[in-house]
């Protein structure tokens, strides 16, 4: 019988939450920078008048931006270069892979929004891949609110801790 990757100590972390409050409004430069980086020239993200003509009070964020940026977290870079939210789960003998994301866009993000981001560990489950490799699937949720308490976006993120040892 193979030993379980998902220990009681890990399982005890289900329900853990962490809250980040952005040090400043997200700002129009963040929208323009992101749009330029991905090569998206939609004027909704850079042209206030265009955005107003289409029912907004000004430019809006490219939809996936708030789920991607670490701007709000205000953390120091790790040796890997990463500077965003992480749970720092220690699962010996595994490597971390990104599974995917489920975004729900409740309302557009605007430049004056100051984000409060609440991360929580929703679930952890042990699975075996189609190739017989043991892994732990960690499901997290992030909710992005603005300073008025409006829920802007929900992000369900799946991380996969896959055994380096191959099939058991």
């Amino acid at each position, binding site marked *: 019988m193979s030993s379980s990757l998902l220990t009681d100590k890990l399982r005890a972390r289900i329900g853990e939450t962490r809250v980040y409050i952005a040090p400043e409004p997200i700002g129009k430069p963040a929208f323009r920078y992101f749009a330029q980086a991905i090569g998206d020239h939609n004027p909704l993200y850079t042209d206030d008048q265009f955005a107003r003509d289409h029912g907004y009070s000004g430019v809006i964020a490219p939809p996936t931006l708030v789920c991607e*940026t670490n701007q709000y977290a205000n953390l120091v870079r790790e040796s890997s*270069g990463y500077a965003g939210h992480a749970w720092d789960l220690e699962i010996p003998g595994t490597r971390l892979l990104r599974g995917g994301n489920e975004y729900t866009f409740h309302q557009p993000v605007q430049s004056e929004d100051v984000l409060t981001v609440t991360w929580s560990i929703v679930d952890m489950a042990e699975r075996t891949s189609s190739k017989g490799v043991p892994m732990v699937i960690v499901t997290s949720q992030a909710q992005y609110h603005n300073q008025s308490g409006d829920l802007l976006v929900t992000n369900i993120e799946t991380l996969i801790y896959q055994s380096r040892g191959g099939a058991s």
Partner: protein
Amino acid sequence: MTSREPGAPIPPLERRIDIADMVSYAGATWDWHRMHYDMAYIESAGFTAPIVDGQMLGALMAECMQDWLGPDARLTTLGFRFLTPVEAGSVVRCDGVVESVEPGKIKCALTVHILSSSGSVVGIAASGRAEANTL
């Protein structure tokens, strides 16, 4: 002109992702992970080329939907799974098909394909689904 009927394809969006794009994206998202530009780190992790931040593909899916539906439509959901890592210098293409339509709403299935230099599909980077309000 593509129709908004179930089964109809949506206009594809193709893009080459070079390391300059990846560095730009890393800066724009405050994500300076070395996997995306530092060859010594990349090789120590067992890869032979910088790996595209998977979320760039999510942004491509969002752009594909928004470009097609126009500025009066609003994306309400986007979900995707990563299937194959994409190396720097790859050309990817977001393809989609309409899944369902109801008044003011549309739902599409999306796939980000990896293309060869001749433009044929050599892999699937990500697959997902998006919904939008079209009123």
